[in-house]
């Protein structure tokens, strides 16, 4: 064995730039960026384009910091679950300490710079979001209660409120409605995932509703939350962030989403096993379209209002 081969072996598993980027959970970040952007544009106060751009960037960095801190704390769970075992920490490419350092540094950077770029209400909301996701959800609730997804979902629901606060410097009923839309959407979205990723959460010992209360109860919960979500989503259409475009999108998508939830509710495990959870997978995919389409419609209404066409006025 030569010196070179020893070196190669030692550095074979060294982290690449992409591994550090993966710590920030880019797919979650895309949702954060999009919903924060919609919140910012839906607000009735115009924002300087550069301030708006960097504010969204700092919100994304704050969201990414939460992802890194979540991966640091949940490395043991991630190593067990099929879906997450290739993440940089369980795969051994990035150490837990490095992820912690990156998470803390980016969190401080994102919050301070958001405060300097826009205002301290927005920065305070971002700081609270990071705290909520890391401490309340990851450290406290996730391993303790089957309501983890319900309460923890609040963390993912804050970005449009932060975007709104960047523009207005405050909180308004409209920004709370956008928060509630994501908050109510999160449980059915994740419970559908838990139904077809069946053994993952069991193996990791995460008390998902499927594990603690059974799969029948999970199906009932999906339907219950979807009914409440549909009422809220359609009701939002009559507020100042809604309008004819939003309402049309909401009516169609909520009808489809409700049908999907009813299909899941009517099925039992044998039926789901027979077609490899086709209805549950379809509902999960639809849930992604559902959220992007609702916020896309709010964005269109905001765009139209610049020309005096959006909303109900």
């Amino acid at each position: 064995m030569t010196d070179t081969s020893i070196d190669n072996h030692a550095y074979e598993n060294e982290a690449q730039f992409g591994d550090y980027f993966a710590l920030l959970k880019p797919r979650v970040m895309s949702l954060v960026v999009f919903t924060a952007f919609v919140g910012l544009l839906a607000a009735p106060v115009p924002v300087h384009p550069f301030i708006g751009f960097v504010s969204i960037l700092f919100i994304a960095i704050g969201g990414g910091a939460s992802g890194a801190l979540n991966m640091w704390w949940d490395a043991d769970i991630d190593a067990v679950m099929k879906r997450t075992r290739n993440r940089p920490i369980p795969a051994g490419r990035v150490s837990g300490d490095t992820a912690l350092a990156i998470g803390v540094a980016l969190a401080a950077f994102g919050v301070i710079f958001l405060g300097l770029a826009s205002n301290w209400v927005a920065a305070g909301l971002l700081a609270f979001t990071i705290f909520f996701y890391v401490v309340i959800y990851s450290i406290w609730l996730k391993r303790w209660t089957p309501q983890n997804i319900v309460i923890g979902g609040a963390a993912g629901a804050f970005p449009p409120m932060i975007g709104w606060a960047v523009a207005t410097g405050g909180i308004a009923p409209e920004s709370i409605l956008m928060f509630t839309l994501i908050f109510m959407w999160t449980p059915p979205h994740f419970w559908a995932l838990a139904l077809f990723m069946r053994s993952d959460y069991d193996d990791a010992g995460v008390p998902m509703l499927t594990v603690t209360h059974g799969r029948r109860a999970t199906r009932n919960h999906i339907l219950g939350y979807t009914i409440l979500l549909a009422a809220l989503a359609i009701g939002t259409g009559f507020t100042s962030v809604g309008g004819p475009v939003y309402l049309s999108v909401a009516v169609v998508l909520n009808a489809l989403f409700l049908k999907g939830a009813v299909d899941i509710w009517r099925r039992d495990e044998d039926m789901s096993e027979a077609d490899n959870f086709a209805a549950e997978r379809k509902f999960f995919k639809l849930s992604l379209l559902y959220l992007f389409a609702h916020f896309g419609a709010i964005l269109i209404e905001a765009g139209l209002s610049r020309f005096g066409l959006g909303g109900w006025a």
Partner: protein
Amino acid sequence: MSFGQQHEIHKRRFGRNLGVGLVLVAVIAIVFGLTVVKVTRGDYEAPRSEVQN
């Protein structure tokens, strides 16, 4: 092994170094741009009442 030869590790690290370098350049550009926007908008000017006092 001669000093002139590039080791495989260096090649592999190039991507990471380049990424970190680009991030640093982006941070500088953002802070500079933010400063320009804030100063030209007059965000750092003292309120008129303070100036009069």
